[in-house]
């Protein structure tokens, strides 16, 4: 019974990880990735590794989504302008 939090956190990580892999669009994937980061932080906490959990929270909450979304924005803008040039 003492291992129940660990089992549940593992289940949550497994579900979130599968969902992150199954999501194809990078924008939507970054959202699932954010949730996966939170699930991992919970798992590290129930495994009594709060330092690692804090690292995961610090990096995964805002920094990773920001970098992913900025990259997506740059790539899409470039692709769109190239498409426009082809049409002209």
């Amino acid at each position, binding site marked *: 019974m003492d291992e129940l939090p660990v089992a549940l956190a593992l289940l949550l990580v497994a579900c979130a990880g599968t969902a992150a892999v199954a999501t194809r669009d990078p924008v939507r994937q970054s959202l699932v990735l954010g949730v996966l980061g939170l699930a991992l932080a919970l798992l590290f906490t129930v495994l009594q590794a709060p330092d690692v959990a804090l*690292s995961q929270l610090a990096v995964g909450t805002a920094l990773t989504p920001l970098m992913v979304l900025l990259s997506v924005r740059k790539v899409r803008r470039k692709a769109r302008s190239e498409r426009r040039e082809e049409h002209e």
Partner: protein
Amino acid sequence: MSPRTRLWVLACGVAGVAALLAVTVWRLPPFGGARHPYGERAVEAALASRVANAVASVNFDQRAFDTLGEQAILFGSVLGTVVVLRQTRDERRVEPEPAGVAGPVRRYALIALPVVLLTGVYVVAHGQLSPGGGFQGGVVAATGLHLLYVAVDYRALKRVRSVHLFTLADAAGEAGYLLLGTGGLLAGTAYLTDVLPLGTFGTLASGGTVPLLNAAIGVEVAAAVVVLLARFLDQAIEIVTSGEEGDRAPGTDGAPGTGGARPAGGTGRADGADGPHRTGRGGAG
């Protein structure tokens, strides 16, 4: 050296590593048991150097040299990003336009920003007492600064953020860690040895060099994240290749400008007002 000889040399190396690994694994303590020889020794050493958070003791005292390598990796990767994402000759900058943000969001950000910054400093300063440390706290503080971008706009962030100063701070943090390590050499022992007075267990001054190394890492990581994000933000918002018309709707004066930034606030693209980019590939699976 012929390919054949080279393969033999490689095989010798691989065999040697494999043999050493096999011996090591053979002598490892059994997996999943209640006794943790390494853990017990690490905690003992942590208590001996009066560090309440054993992880901080492992990172900044027992394995401080490993941490030096890790932070050098961060330093190097940020340096690489700065080089790769620099403004090239066929690219030019457009001035970001102000973004419309709801009043409550802006007010929340302006109040939350100092709170996040202070929380970051708290996490750095108490790395040897509670979960946290230089890396975590540095990232928290750097994220707090970017509240100005996500809740106000990029112009506001640029007004308070001098990338040049943060680059200097990045290097200063890295150098600080290296120089703190030489304290051990001056005292006549090994590099990065904890030679300062250990202080009282459980207080801010405990652990000798551990809090100082934490502070150096905190400065380095916070500055590194700010510089890294500055490159990403510049590329995503300001820098366009010539011929690329920012994000303006097609059909409005499509003549591409060659070189030279456009007048401020003029025909630049609106920050936060991308053209429609739907992918149509939504949903899981």
